[in-house]
Protein backbone atom coordinates (compact mmCIF):
# COMPACT_ATOMS: atom_id res chain seq x y z
CA UNK A 1 0.00 0.00 0.00
CA UNK A 2 2.95 2.31 0.53
CA UNK A 3 4.19 4.18 -2.42
CA UNK A 4 7.64 5.56 -2.61
CA UNK A 5 6.38 8.94 -3.70
CA UNK A 6 8.51 10.61 -6.33
CA UNK A 7 11.33 8.22 -6.96
CA UNK A 8 13.06 10.57 -9.31
CA UNK A 9 16.07 12.03 -7.67
CA UNK A 10 16.04 15.77 -8.07
CA UNK A 11 19.27 17.71 -7.92
CA UNK A 12 17.84 20.69 -6.11
CA UNK A 13 16.46 18.59 -3.24
CA UNK A 14 19.17 16.07 -2.46
CA UNK A 15 17.61 15.26 0.89
CA UNK A 16 14.19 14.14 -0.43
CA UNK A 17 15.00 10.45 -0.10
CA UNK A 18 16.06 10.90 3.48
CA UNK A 19 13.00 13.01 4.28
CA UNK A 20 10.78 10.44 2.63
CA UNK A 21 12.26 7.66 4.73
CA UNK A 22 11.86 9.67 7.92
CA UNK A 23 8.27 10.58 7.00
CA UNK A 24 7.37 7.00 6.20
CA UNK A 25 8.78 5.81 9.51
CA UNK A 26 7.11 8.60 11.47
CA UNK A 27 3.72 7.91 9.91
CA UNK A 28 4.18 4.16 9.57
CA UNK A 29 4.67 3.50 13.27
CA UNK A 30 1.30 4.90 14.42
CA UNK A 31 -0.40 3.17 11.49
CA UNK A 32 1.01 -0.23 12.36
CA UNK A 33 0.25 0.42 16.04
CA UNK A 34 -3.39 1.27 15.23
CA UNK A 35 -3.83 -1.82 13.07
CA UNK A 36 -2.31 -4.08 15.72
CA UNK A 37 -4.19 -2.53 18.64
CA UNK A 38 -7.65 -2.18 17.06
CA UNK A 39 -8.52 -5.90 16.90
CA UNK A 40 -7.69 -6.21 20.60
CA UNK A 41 -10.51 -3.96 21.74
CA UNK A 42 -14.22 -4.10 21.12
CA UNK A 43 -17.64 -4.25 22.72
CA UNK A 44 -16.75 -7.62 24.25
CA UNK A 45 -13.67 -8.78 26.09
CA UNK A 46 -11.81 -11.60 24.44
CA UNK A 47 -8.93 -13.66 25.74
CA UNK A 48 -5.96 -13.48 23.39
CA UNK A 49 -4.57 -16.80 24.58
CA UNK A 50 -7.85 -18.46 23.73
CA UNK A 51 -7.92 -16.69 20.35
CA UNK A 52 -4.62 -18.32 19.43
CA UNK A 53 -5.39 -21.65 21.06
CA UNK A 54 -5.13 -24.19 18.24
CA UNK A 55 -6.42 -27.08 20.34
CA UNK A 56 -9.97 -25.74 20.26
CA UNK A 57 -11.64 -26.09 16.84
CA UNK A 58 -12.48 -22.71 15.35
CA UNK A 59 -16.17 -23.56 15.23
CA UNK A 60 -16.22 -23.76 19.04
CA UNK A 61 -13.85 -20.89 19.72
CA UNK A 62 -16.00 -17.79 20.02
CA UNK A 63 -13.02 -15.61 20.96
CA UNK A 64 -11.17 -16.65 17.82
CA UNK A 65 -14.26 -16.04 15.68
CA UNK A 66 -14.72 -12.58 17.16
CA UNK A 67 -11.07 -11.85 16.47
CA UNK A 68 -10.72 -13.38 13.00
CA UNK A 69 -14.21 -12.87 11.54
CA UNK A 70 -15.49 -9.74 13.25
CA UNK A 71 -12.49 -7.59 14.17
CA UNK A 72 -9.57 -8.37 11.89
CA UNK A 73 -11.40 -7.96 8.56
CA UNK A 74 -12.99 -4.85 9.94
CA UNK A 75 -9.66 -3.32 10.94
CA UNK A 76 -8.09 -4.16 7.59
CA UNK A 77 -11.12 -2.76 5.78
CA UNK A 78 -10.69 0.44 7.80
CA UNK A 79 -7.03 0.67 6.85
CA UNK A 80 -7.73 0.07 3.16
CA UNK A 81 -10.62 2.53 3.01
CA UNK A 82 -8.83 5.17 5.09
CA UNK A 83 -5.65 4.99 3.02
CA UNK A 84 -7.57 5.08 -0.26
CA UNK A 85 -9.82 8.00 0.65
CA UNK A 86 -7.01 10.07 2.16
CA UNK A 87 -4.70 9.55 -0.82
CA UNK A 88 -7.54 10.18 -3.27
CA UNK A 89 -8.26 13.40 -1.38
CA UNK A 90 -4.67 14.57 -1.87
CA UNK A 91 -4.82 13.80 -5.58
CA UNK A 92 -8.18 15.51 -6.12
CA UNK A 93 -7.03 18.60 -4.22
CA UNK A 94 -3.91 18.74 -6.40
CA UNK A 95 -5.76 18.03 -9.62
CA UNK A 96 -8.53 20.55 -9.05
CA UNK A 97 -6.15 23.01 -7.36
CA UNK A 98 -8.78 23.43 -4.70
CA UNK A 99 -7.97 22.77 -1.03
CA UNK A 100 -11.62 21.99 -0.28
CA UNK A 101 -11.92 19.21 -2.87
CA UNK A 102 -12.71 15.76 -1.47
CA UNK A 103 -12.88 12.30 -3.04
CA UNK A 104 -16.66 12.84 -3.19
CA UNK A 105 -16.62 16.26 -4.90
CA UNK A 106 -16.91 14.84 -8.39
CA UNK A 107 -20.06 12.80 -7.86
CA UNK A 108 -18.36 9.44 -7.32
CA UNK A 109 -19.99 8.87 -3.94
CA UNK A 110 -23.47 9.80 -5.10
CA UNK A 111 -23.10 7.50 -8.10
CA UNK A 112 -22.05 4.76 -5.69
CA UNK A 113 -24.90 5.66 -3.34
CA UNK A 114 -27.41 5.42 -6.18
CA UNK A 115 -26.12 1.93 -7.02
CA UNK A 116 -26.31 0.84 -3.39
CA UNK A 117 -29.82 2.30 -2.97
CA UNK A 118 -31.05 0.38 -6.02
CA UNK A 119 -29.49 -2.85 -4.76
CA UNK A 120 -31.01 -2.45 -1.29
CA UNK A 121 -34.42 -1.18 -2.34
CA UNK A 122 -35.03 -3.81 -5.00
CA UNK A 123 -33.17 -6.50 -3.07
CA UNK A 124 -30.95 -7.49 -5.97
CA UNK A 125 -29.41 -10.90 -5.55
CA UNK A 126 -26.66 -10.68 -8.14
CA UNK A 127 -23.28 -11.49 -6.70
CA UNK A 128 -20.05 -13.28 -7.38
CA UNK A 129 -16.79 -14.18 -5.64
CA UNK A 130 -18.44 -13.89 -2.26
CA UNK A 131 -19.54 -10.32 -2.91
CA UNK A 132 -23.15 -9.30 -2.53
CA UNK A 133 -25.11 -6.97 -4.76
CA UNK A 134 -24.61 -3.82 -2.67
CA UNK A 135 -20.83 -3.40 -3.07
CA UNK A 136 -20.99 -4.47 -6.72
CA UNK A 137 -23.80 -2.03 -7.50
CA UNK A 138 -22.10 0.78 -5.61
CA UNK A 139 -18.86 0.25 -7.53
CA UNK A 140 -20.78 0.14 -10.80
CA UNK A 141 -22.49 3.39 -9.79
CA UNK A 142 -19.18 5.11 -9.13
CA UNK A 143 -17.80 3.91 -12.48
CA UNK A 144 -20.88 5.33 -14.18
CA UNK A 145 -20.46 8.69 -12.45
CA UNK A 146 -16.75 8.85 -13.33
CA UNK A 147 -17.49 8.02 -16.98
CA UNK A 148 -20.10 10.77 -17.25
CA UNK A 149 -17.96 13.42 -15.57
CA UNK A 150 -14.94 12.54 -17.71
CA UNK A 151 -16.93 12.51 -20.94
CA UNK A 152 -18.27 15.98 -20.14
CA UNK A 153 -14.86 17.39 -19.24
CA UNK A 154 -13.27 16.36 -22.56
CA UNK A 155 -16.31 17.01 -24.74
CA UNK A 156 -15.77 20.59 -25.75
CA UNK A 157 -12.02 21.00 -25.97
CA UNK A 158 -8.68 19.33 -26.36
CA UNK A 159 -7.36 18.07 -23.07
CA UNK A 160 -9.10 17.91 -19.77
CA UNK A 161 -10.87 20.92 -18.33
CA UNK A 162 -10.66 20.88 -14.56
CA UNK A 163 -13.28 23.60 -14.26
CA UNK A 164 -15.75 21.56 -16.32
CA UNK A 165 -14.72 18.53 -14.26
CA UNK A 166 -15.60 20.38 -11.06
CA UNK A 167 -18.86 21.82 -12.34
CA UNK A 168 -19.96 18.55 -13.93
CA UNK A 169 -19.10 16.70 -10.74
CA UNK A 170 -21.03 19.05 -8.49
CA UNK A 171 -24.03 19.01 -10.84
CA UNK A 172 -23.93 15.24 -11.11
CA UNK A 173 -23.86 15.03 -7.31
CA UNK A 174 -27.09 17.01 -7.18
CA UNK A 175 -28.68 15.02 -9.99
CA UNK A 176 -27.81 11.66 -8.43
CA UNK A 177 -29.15 12.88 -5.10
CA UNK A 178 -32.44 13.61 -6.85
CA UNK A 179 -32.43 10.12 -8.38
CA UNK A 180 -31.74 8.68 -4.94
CA UNK A 181 -34.83 10.45 -3.62
CA UNK A 182 -36.77 9.01 -6.53
CA UNK A 183 -35.60 5.48 -5.70
CA UNK A 184 -36.28 6.05 -2.00
CA UNK A 185 -39.86 6.80 -2.90
CA UNK A 186 -40.31 3.11 -3.73
CA UNK A 187 -38.60 1.82 -0.60
CA UNK A 188 -40.41 0.69 2.53
CA UNK A 189 -39.28 1.90 5.92
CA UNK A 190 -36.96 -0.96 6.75
CA UNK A 191 -35.21 -0.45 3.41
CA UNK A 192 -35.07 3.30 3.91
CA UNK A 193 -33.47 2.73 7.27
CA UNK A 194 -30.85 0.42 5.78
CA UNK A 195 -30.04 2.80 2.93
CA UNK A 196 -29.65 5.69 5.34
CA UNK A 197 -27.38 3.54 7.45
CA UNK A 198 -25.30 2.66 4.39
CA UNK A 199 -24.74 6.36 3.77
CA UNK A 200 -23.25 6.74 7.24
CA UNK A 201 -20.52 4.22 6.41
CA UNK A 202 -20.02 0.77 7.85
CA UNK A 203 -16.83 -1.26 8.01
CA UNK A 204 -18.35 -4.41 9.52
CA UNK A 205 -17.52 -6.52 6.46
CA UNK A 206 -17.73 -9.86 8.38
CA UNK A 207 -15.33 -11.62 6.00
CA UNK A 208 -12.16 -10.97 4.04
CA UNK A 209 -13.89 -11.29 0.69
CA UNK A 210 -14.90 -7.63 0.23
CA UNK A 211 -11.33 -6.60 1.08
CA UNK A 212 -9.81 -9.16 -1.29
CA UNK A 213 -12.14 -7.94 -4.04
CA UNK A 214 -11.28 -4.26 -3.51
CA UNK A 215 -7.55 -4.77 -2.98
CA UNK A 216 -6.51 -5.15 -6.65
CA UNK A 217 -8.41 -1.98 -7.51
CA UNK A 218 -6.82 -0.07 -4.64
CA UNK A 219 -3.36 -1.42 -5.46
CA UNK A 220 -3.82 -0.40 -9.09
CA UNK A 221 -4.77 3.08 -7.98
CA UNK A 222 -1.79 3.31 -5.63
CA UNK A 223 0.50 2.12 -8.41
CA UNK A 224 -0.68 5.08 -10.48
CA UNK A 225 -0.43 7.43 -7.49
CA UNK A 226 3.27 6.57 -7.33
CA UNK A 227 3.75 8.22 -10.72
CA UNK A 228 1.95 11.43 -9.73
CA UNK A 229 3.75 13.44 -7.03
CA UNK A 230 6.09 15.40 -9.31
CA UNK A 231 3.26 16.22 -11.72
CA UNK A 232 1.00 17.28 -8.86
CA UNK A 233 3.73 19.55 -7.50
CA UNK A 234 4.04 21.24 -10.88
CA UNK A 235 0.28 21.35 -11.47
CA UNK A 236 -0.06 23.38 -8.30
CA UNK A 237 1.66 26.20 -10.19
CA UNK A 238 -1.10 26.04 -12.80
CA UNK A 239 -1.45 23.89 -15.91
CA UNK A 240 0.33 26.40 -18.16
CA UNK A 241 3.51 26.69 -16.12
CA UNK A 242 3.40 22.95 -15.51
CA UNK A 243 3.35 22.44 -19.26
CA UNK A 244 6.41 24.61 -19.75
CA UNK A 245 8.34 22.51 -17.23
CA UNK A 246 8.13 19.42 -19.30
CA UNK A 247 5.19 17.38 -18.12
CA UNK A 248 2.34 16.16 -20.28
CA UNK A 249 -0.37 18.06 -18.41
CA UNK A 250 -3.38 16.33 -19.92
CA UNK A 251 -1.90 12.91 -19.38
CA UNK A 252 -1.03 13.68 -15.76
CA UNK A 253 -4.49 15.08 -15.13
CA UNK A 254 -6.11 12.04 -16.69
CA UNK A 255 -3.98 9.66 -14.60
CA UNK A 256 -4.76 11.65 -11.46
CA UNK A 257 -8.48 11.68 -12.18
CA UNK A 258 -8.82 7.99 -12.97
CA UNK A 259 -6.53 6.69 -10.23
CA UNK A 260 -8.18 8.80 -7.52
CA UNK A 261 -11.61 7.81 -8.82
CA UNK A 262 -10.64 4.14 -8.79
CA UNK A 263 -9.40 4.37 -5.20
CA UNK A 264 -12.56 6.19 -4.15
CA UNK A 265 -14.88 3.73 -5.89
CA UNK A 266 -13.10 0.77 -4.31
CA UNK A 267 -13.19 2.38 -0.86
CA UNK A 268 -16.88 3.27 -1.06
CA UNK A 269 -17.80 -0.23 -2.20
CA UNK A 270 -16.18 -1.60 0.96
CA UNK A 271 -17.22 0.91 3.60
CA UNK A 272 -19.83 3.24 2.14
CA UNK A 273 -19.25 6.97 1.65
CA UNK A 274 -17.34 7.73 4.86
CA UNK A 275 -16.96 11.47 4.85
CA UNK A 276 -14.20 13.91 5.78
CA UNK A 277 -11.30 11.42 5.73
CA UNK A 278 -10.29 12.74 2.32
CA UNK A 279 -10.09 16.30 3.60
CA UNK A 280 -9.00 16.14 7.23
CA UNK A 281 -6.10 13.78 6.68
CA UNK A 282 -4.39 15.54 3.73
CA UNK A 283 -4.55 18.90 5.49
CA UNK A 284 -3.24 17.61 8.79
CA UNK A 285 -0.42 15.91 6.93
CA UNK A 286 0.40 19.12 5.03
CA UNK A 287 0.62 20.96 8.33
CA UNK A 288 3.21 18.42 9.43
CA UNK A 289 5.31 17.75 6.34
CA UNK A 290 4.73 20.71 4.05
CA UNK A 291 3.17 20.69 0.61
CA UNK A 292 5.56 18.47 -1.38
CA UNK A 293 3.36 15.74 -2.83
CA UNK A 294 6.24 13.28 -2.74
CA UNK A 295 5.82 13.33 1.04
CA UNK A 296 2.15 14.32 1.38
CA UNK A 297 0.79 11.49 -0.73
CA UNK A 298 2.39 8.50 1.01
CA UNK A 299 2.09 10.10 4.45
CA UNK A 300 -1.63 10.76 3.88
CA UNK A 301 -2.23 7.17 2.85
CA UNK A 302 -0.58 5.94 6.05
CA UNK A 303 -2.21 8.49 8.29
CA UNK A 304 -5.61 7.94 6.63
CA UNK A 305 -5.38 4.25 7.47
CA UNK A 306 -4.49 4.95 11.10
CA UNK A 307 -7.14 7.66 11.44
CA UNK A 308 -10.04 5.58 10.10
CA UNK A 309 -9.03 2.51 12.10
CA UNK A 310 -8.99 4.69 15.23
CA UNK A 311 -12.35 6.30 14.39
CA UNK A 312 -13.90 2.88 13.78
CA UNK A 313 -12.56 1.56 17.07
CA UNK A 314 -14.20 4.51 18.76
CA UNK A 315 -17.42 3.88 16.82
CA UNK A 316 -17.74 0.30 17.96
CA UNK A 317 -16.83 0.82 21.60
CA UNK A 318 -18.16 4.20 22.68
CA UNK A 319 -21.83 3.21 23.22
CA UNK A 320 -21.44 -0.58 23.19
CA UNK A 321 -23.19 -2.99 22.86
CA UNK A 322 -24.74 -0.95 20.05
CA UNK A 323 -22.45 1.17 17.94
CA UNK A 324 -22.26 4.55 16.28
CA UNK A 325 -21.88 4.72 12.52
CA UNK A 326 -18.22 5.42 11.74
CA UNK A 327 -19.26 8.19 9.34
CA UNK A 328 -20.84 10.01 12.28
CA UNK A 329 -17.53 9.97 14.16
CA UNK A 330 -15.51 11.20 11.17
CA UNK A 331 -18.14 13.88 10.50
CA UNK A 332 -18.18 15.06 14.12
CA UNK A 333 -14.41 15.46 13.97
CA UNK A 334 -14.30 16.60 10.37
CA UNK A 335 -17.04 19.21 10.28
CA UNK A 336 -15.45 21.62 12.78
CA UNK A 337 -12.03 20.95 11.26
CA UNK A 338 -13.34 21.81 7.80
CA UNK A 339 -14.74 25.11 9.09
CA UNK A 340 -11.51 25.93 10.87
CA UNK A 341 -9.67 25.29 7.62
CA UNK A 342 -12.03 27.63 5.81
CA UNK A 343 -11.43 30.62 8.10
CA UNK A 344 -7.79 29.93 8.92
CA UNK A 345 -6.45 32.09 6.10
Amino acid at each position, binding site marked *: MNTTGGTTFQGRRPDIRRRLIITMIAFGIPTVAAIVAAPLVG*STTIDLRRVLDRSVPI*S*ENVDAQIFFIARLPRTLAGALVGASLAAAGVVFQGLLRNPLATPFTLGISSGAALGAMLAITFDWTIGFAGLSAVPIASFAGSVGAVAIVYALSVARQRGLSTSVLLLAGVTLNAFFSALILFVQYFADF*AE*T*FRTLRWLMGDLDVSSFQPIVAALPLALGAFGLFATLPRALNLLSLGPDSAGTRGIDVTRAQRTAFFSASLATGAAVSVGGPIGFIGIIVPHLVRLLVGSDHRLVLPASALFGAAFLVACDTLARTVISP*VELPVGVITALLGGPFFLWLLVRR
Partner: protein
Amino acid sequence: MSIRSLCLCVAALTLFFARSSPSASSSQPVNHPKRIISLIPAVTEMVYAIGAGPQLVGVGSFDTYPSEVASLPRVGGLLDPDVERILALKPDLVIVYGTQNDLRLQLERAGINQFSYKHGSLAGVMETIRALGIRLGRAEGADRVATDLENRLSAIRGKVSGRVRPKTLLVFGRDALALRGIFASGGIGFIHDMLTTAGGDNVFTDVTRESVQATTELILQRAPEAIIEMRQSVKADEIAAERAVWSTLSSLPAVRTARIYILTDSSLPVPGPRVAQATESIAKTLHPEAFR
Protein backbone atom coordinates in the same frame (compact mmCIF):
# COMPACT_ATOMS: atom_id res chain seq x y z
CA MET B 1 -26.06 13.46 0.09
CA SER B 2 -28.50 16.28 0.13
CA ILE B 3 -29.90 17.60 3.37
CA ARG B 4 -33.38 17.09 2.03
CA SER B 5 -33.02 13.40 1.42
CA LEU B 6 -31.52 12.99 4.87
CA CYS B 7 -34.45 14.83 6.38
CA LEU B 8 -36.85 12.55 4.52
CA CYS B 9 -35.05 9.50 5.73
CA VAL B 10 -35.00 10.74 9.29
CA ALA B 11 -38.71 11.45 9.07
CA ALA B 12 -39.30 7.95 7.77
CA LEU B 13 -37.34 6.47 10.64
CA THR B 14 -39.16 8.47 13.19
CA LEU B 15 -42.36 7.08 11.79
CA PHE B 16 -41.16 3.52 11.70
CA PHE B 17 -39.53 3.40 15.04
CA ALA B 18 -41.64 5.80 16.99
CA ARG B 19 -42.73 4.15 20.17
CA SER B 20 -45.79 5.27 21.93
CA SER B 21 -49.20 3.88 22.50
CA PRO B 22 -52.10 4.47 20.16
CA SER B 23 -54.48 7.22 21.03
CA ALA B 24 -57.72 8.42 19.61
CA SER B 25 -57.76 12.04 18.59
CA SER B 26 -59.57 14.50 20.73
CA SER B 27 -62.06 15.65 18.11
CA GLN B 28 -65.63 14.95 19.17
CA PRO B 29 -67.40 12.29 17.13
CA VAL B 30 -70.94 13.36 16.47
CA ASN B 31 -72.00 10.69 14.02
CA HIS B 32 -70.28 7.48 13.20
CA PRO B 33 -68.12 8.00 10.13
CA LYS B 34 -69.38 6.71 6.81
CA ARG B 35 -66.55 7.77 4.55
CA ILE B 36 -63.19 6.68 6.03
CA ILE B 37 -59.70 7.09 4.65
CA SER B 38 -56.87 5.08 6.25
CA LEU B 39 -53.27 5.91 5.45
CA ILE B 40 -51.78 3.22 7.69
CA PRO B 41 -51.69 -0.42 6.47
CA ALA B 42 -52.00 -1.90 9.97
CA VAL B 43 -55.06 0.22 10.75
CA THR B 44 -56.62 -0.49 7.34
CA GLU B 45 -56.48 -4.17 8.26
CA MET B 46 -58.15 -3.38 11.58
CA VAL B 47 -60.94 -1.44 9.86
CA TYR B 48 -61.71 -4.49 7.72
CA ALA B 49 -61.42 -6.87 10.66
CA ILE B 50 -64.06 -5.02 12.67
CA GLY B 51 -66.39 -4.94 9.70
CA ALA B 52 -66.07 -1.31 8.67
CA GLY B 53 -64.37 -2.11 5.36
CA PRO B 54 -67.31 -0.98 3.23
CA GLN B 55 -67.00 2.51 4.72
CA LEU B 56 -63.44 2.94 3.42
CA VAL B 57 -63.23 5.33 0.48
CA GLY B 58 -59.44 5.58 0.22
CA VAL B 59 -56.27 3.87 1.44
CA GLY B 60 -52.54 4.56 1.61
CA SER B 61 -50.07 3.68 -1.12
CA PHE B 62 -48.49 0.85 0.89
CA ASP B 63 -51.75 -1.00 1.59
CA THR B 64 -51.87 -4.54 0.19
CA TYR B 65 -54.09 -6.45 2.60
CA PRO B 66 -56.89 -7.50 2.49
CA SER B 67 -57.30 -7.86 -1.26
CA GLU B 68 -60.30 -5.49 -1.29
CA VAL B 69 -57.94 -2.52 -0.95
CA ALA B 70 -56.84 -3.04 -4.54
CA SER B 71 -60.01 -1.40 -5.85
CA LEU B 72 -59.84 1.66 -3.58
CA PRO B 73 -58.29 5.00 -4.52
CA ARG B 74 -54.73 5.54 -3.23
CA VAL B 75 -54.10 8.78 -1.42
CA GLY B 76 -50.36 8.67 -0.74
CA GLY B 77 -48.39 7.34 2.18
CA LEU B 78 -46.86 8.41 5.46
CA LEU B 79 -44.45 10.88 3.94
CA ASP B 80 -46.45 12.04 0.97
CA PRO B 81 -50.16 12.16 1.80
CA ASP B 82 -52.03 13.63 -1.16
CA VAL B 83 -54.15 16.20 0.67
CA GLU B 84 -55.97 17.26 -2.47
CA ARG B 85 -57.18 13.73 -3.21
CA ILE B 86 -58.02 13.18 0.45
CA LEU B 87 -60.24 16.27 0.49
CA ALA B 88 -61.77 15.40 -2.89
CA LEU B 89 -62.96 12.06 -1.51
CA LYS B 90 -64.98 13.98 1.11
CA PRO B 91 -64.07 11.78 4.06
CA ASP B 92 -65.65 12.21 7.47
CA LEU B 93 -62.75 10.43 9.19
CA VAL B 94 -59.10 10.19 8.21
CA ILE B 95 -56.83 7.72 10.00
CA VAL B 96 -53.36 9.31 10.21
CA TYR B 97 -50.04 8.46 11.77
CA GLY B 98 -49.21 10.39 14.94
CA THR B 99 -46.29 12.19 13.36
CA GLN B 100 -48.08 13.45 10.24
CA ASN B 101 -48.34 16.91 11.74
CA ASP B 102 -48.80 18.88 8.52
CA LEU B 103 -51.61 16.63 7.36
CA ARG B 104 -53.28 16.76 10.76
CA LEU B 105 -53.18 20.54 10.73
CA GLN B 106 -54.67 20.68 7.24
CA LEU B 107 -57.45 18.24 8.17
CA GLU B 108 -58.20 20.30 11.24
CA ARG B 109 -58.50 23.43 9.12
CA ALA B 110 -60.80 21.59 6.74
CA GLY B 111 -62.89 20.45 9.70
CA ILE B 112 -62.35 16.75 9.05
CA ASN B 113 -62.16 14.36 11.99
CA GLN B 114 -59.09 12.25 12.44
CA PHE B 115 -57.96 9.15 14.27
CA SER B 116 -54.28 9.29 15.10
CA TYR B 117 -52.20 6.21 15.66
CA LYS B 118 -48.62 5.14 16.41
CA HIS B 119 -46.93 1.74 16.48
CA GLY B 120 -46.22 0.44 19.96
CA SER B 121 -46.35 -2.81 21.86
CA LEU B 122 -48.26 -5.99 21.03
CA ALA B 123 -50.90 -5.13 23.64
CA GLY B 124 -51.16 -1.77 21.89
CA VAL B 125 -52.57 -3.53 18.82
CA MET B 126 -55.60 -4.72 20.78
CA GLU B 127 -55.92 -1.32 22.45
CA THR B 128 -55.98 0.36 19.05
CA ILE B 129 -58.58 -2.08 17.72
CA ARG B 130 -60.88 -1.31 20.66
CA ALA B 131 -60.33 2.45 20.41
CA LEU B 132 -61.00 2.29 16.67
CA GLY B 133 -64.18 0.29 17.31
CA ILE B 134 -65.52 2.95 19.64
CA ARG B 135 -64.65 5.63 17.14
CA LEU B 136 -66.36 3.81 14.26
CA GLY B 137 -69.43 2.85 16.28
CA ARG B 138 -68.50 -0.80 16.18
CA ALA B 139 -67.29 -1.23 19.75
CA GLU B 140 -68.79 -4.70 20.07
CA GLY B 141 -67.33 -6.07 16.86
CA ALA B 142 -63.95 -4.57 17.70
CA ASP B 143 -64.01 -6.02 21.17
CA ARG B 144 -64.76 -9.44 19.68
CA VAL B 145 -61.77 -9.14 17.33
CA ALA B 146 -59.47 -7.91 20.10
CA THR B 147 -60.61 -10.57 22.56
CA ASP B 148 -60.19 -13.25 19.93
CA LEU B 149 -56.63 -12.05 19.29
CA GLU B 150 -55.91 -12.03 23.01
CA ASN B 151 -57.27 -15.56 23.34
CA ARG B 152 -55.22 -16.81 20.42
CA LEU B 153 -52.08 -15.15 21.80
CA SER B 154 -52.61 -16.66 25.23
CA ALA B 155 -53.26 -20.05 23.61
CA ILE B 156 -49.86 -19.73 21.95
CA ARG B 157 -48.34 -18.73 25.27
CA GLY B 158 -49.91 -21.81 26.84
CA LYS B 159 -48.61 -24.15 24.16
CA VAL B 160 -45.03 -22.97 24.44
CA SER B 161 -44.95 -22.56 28.21
CA GLY B 162 -42.64 -24.92 30.01
CA ARG B 163 -40.62 -25.52 26.87
CA VAL B 164 -36.99 -24.51 26.56
CA ARG B 165 -36.96 -20.95 25.26
CA PRO B 166 -34.20 -20.60 22.66
CA LYS B 167 -32.13 -17.43 22.70
CA THR B 168 -33.28 -15.96 19.41
CA LEU B 169 -31.96 -13.36 17.01
CA LEU B 170 -34.92 -11.87 15.13
CA VAL B 171 -33.69 -10.21 11.94
CA PHE B 172 -35.93 -7.91 9.92
CA GLY B 173 -33.43 -6.53 7.44
CA ARG B 174 -30.18 -7.69 5.86
CA ASP B 175 -28.30 -7.27 2.59
CA ALA B 176 -29.06 -10.09 0.19
CA LEU B 177 -26.46 -12.89 0.32
CA ALA B 178 -24.17 -11.21 2.84
CA LEU B 179 -23.90 -10.74 6.59
CA ARG B 180 -24.02 -6.98 6.21
CA GLY B 181 -26.57 -4.35 7.10
CA ILE B 182 -28.21 -6.63 9.66
CA PHE B 183 -31.04 -5.06 11.63
CA ALA B 184 -32.63 -7.05 14.42
CA SER B 185 -35.38 -6.54 16.96
CA GLY B 186 -34.30 -4.81 20.14
CA GLY B 187 -35.93 -5.32 23.51
CA ILE B 188 -39.11 -3.26 22.97
CA GLY B 189 -41.89 -3.03 20.39
CA PHE B 190 -44.48 -5.42 19.01
CA ILE B 191 -41.96 -7.59 17.17
CA HIS B 192 -40.05 -8.22 20.40
CA ASP B 193 -43.37 -8.93 22.16
CA MET B 194 -44.37 -11.37 19.41
CA LEU B 195 -41.10 -13.26 19.82
CA THR B 196 -41.49 -13.43 23.59
CA THR B 197 -45.07 -14.65 23.26
CA ALA B 198 -43.97 -17.26 20.72
CA GLY B 199 -41.58 -18.83 23.23
CA GLY B 200 -38.28 -17.25 22.28
CA ASP B 201 -35.90 -15.15 24.34
CA ASN B 202 -34.67 -12.14 22.39
CA VAL B 203 -30.86 -11.96 22.44
CA PHE B 204 -31.23 -8.17 22.56
CA THR B 205 -33.73 -8.00 25.43
CA ASP B 206 -31.40 -5.64 27.27
CA VAL B 207 -31.32 -3.08 24.43
CA THR B 208 -34.20 -0.66 24.99
CA ARG B 209 -34.71 0.20 21.34
CA GLU B 210 -36.97 -1.23 18.68
CA SER B 211 -34.11 -1.99 16.32
CA VAL B 212 -30.46 -2.86 16.76
CA GLN B 213 -27.85 -2.84 14.07
CA ALA B 214 -26.32 -6.21 14.80
CA THR B 215 -22.62 -6.30 14.02
CA THR B 216 -20.76 -9.55 13.50
CA GLU B 217 -19.06 -9.17 16.86
CA LEU B 218 -22.33 -8.55 18.67
CA ILE B 219 -23.98 -11.58 17.09
CA LEU B 220 -21.00 -13.82 17.90
CA GLN B 221 -20.99 -12.59 21.46
CA ARG B 222 -24.75 -13.02 21.99
CA ALA B 223 -24.53 -16.56 20.54
CA PRO B 224 -28.18 -17.02 19.47
CA GLU B 225 -29.55 -20.57 19.55
CA ALA B 226 -32.04 -19.74 16.82
CA ILE B 227 -32.10 -17.12 14.08
CA ILE B 228 -35.37 -16.03 12.53
CA GLU B 229 -35.33 -13.71 9.57
CA MET B 230 -38.48 -11.91 8.46
CA ARG B 231 -37.74 -11.15 4.84
CA GLN B 232 -40.67 -10.92 2.50
CA SER B 233 -38.63 -10.27 -0.62
CA VAL B 234 -36.73 -13.57 -0.47
CA LYS B 235 -38.09 -16.02 -3.04
CA ALA B 236 -38.56 -19.72 -2.32
CA ASP B 237 -35.57 -20.78 -4.42
CA GLU B 238 -33.25 -18.31 -2.68
CA ILE B 239 -33.92 -19.47 0.88
CA ALA B 240 -31.23 -22.16 0.92
CA ALA B 241 -28.57 -19.72 -0.29
CA GLU B 242 -29.69 -17.06 2.19
CA ARG B 243 -29.50 -19.53 5.08
CA ALA B 244 -26.05 -20.64 3.96
CA VAL B 245 -24.48 -17.20 4.42
CA TRP B 246 -24.68 -17.66 8.19
CA SER B 247 -22.31 -20.63 8.07
CA THR B 248 -19.36 -18.21 8.33
CA LEU B 249 -20.26 -17.70 11.99
CA SER B 250 -19.77 -21.38 12.79
CA SER B 251 -19.48 -20.86 16.54
CA LEU B 252 -23.14 -19.80 16.79
CA PRO B 253 -25.31 -22.51 18.35
CA ALA B 254 -27.98 -21.62 15.77
CA VAL B 255 -25.56 -22.41 12.95
CA ARG B 256 -24.31 -25.64 14.51
CA THR B 257 -27.83 -26.96 15.07
CA ALA B 258 -29.09 -25.51 11.75
CA ARG B 259 -31.82 -23.50 13.48
CA ILE B 260 -31.89 -20.70 10.95
CA TYR B 261 -35.29 -19.85 9.55
CA ILE B 262 -36.31 -17.42 6.86
CA LEU B 263 -39.98 -16.48 7.05
CA THR B 264 -41.51 -14.72 4.05
CA ASP B 265 -45.09 -14.40 5.32
CA SER B 266 -46.35 -10.87 4.57
CA SER B 267 -48.29 -10.69 7.86
CA LEU B 268 -45.13 -10.74 9.95
CA PRO B 269 -44.15 -7.11 10.26
CA VAL B 270 -47.69 -5.65 10.42
CA PRO B 271 -49.02 -4.70 13.86
CA GLY B 272 -52.64 -5.32 12.85
CA PRO B 273 -55.26 -8.06 13.30
CA ARG B 274 -52.92 -10.67 11.83
CA VAL B 275 -50.52 -10.46 14.81
CA ALA B 276 -51.83 -13.72 16.23
CA GLN B 277 -51.21 -15.47 12.92
CA ALA B 278 -47.73 -13.95 12.74
CA THR B 279 -46.95 -14.87 16.34
CA GLU B 280 -48.15 -18.39 15.67
CA SER B 281 -45.84 -18.78 12.69
CA ILE B 282 -42.90 -17.70 14.86
CA ALA B 283 -44.02 -20.11 17.60
CA LYS B 284 -44.36 -22.97 15.09
CA THR B 285 -40.89 -22.19 13.83
CA LEU B 286 -39.33 -22.26 17.28
CA HIS B 287 -41.47 -25.04 18.79
CA PRO B 288 -42.82 -27.25 15.99
CA GLU B 289 -43.41 -30.11 18.42
CA ALA B 290 -45.89 -27.98 20.43
CA PHE B 291 -48.22 -27.67 17.46
CA ARG B 292 -48.45 -31.30 16.40
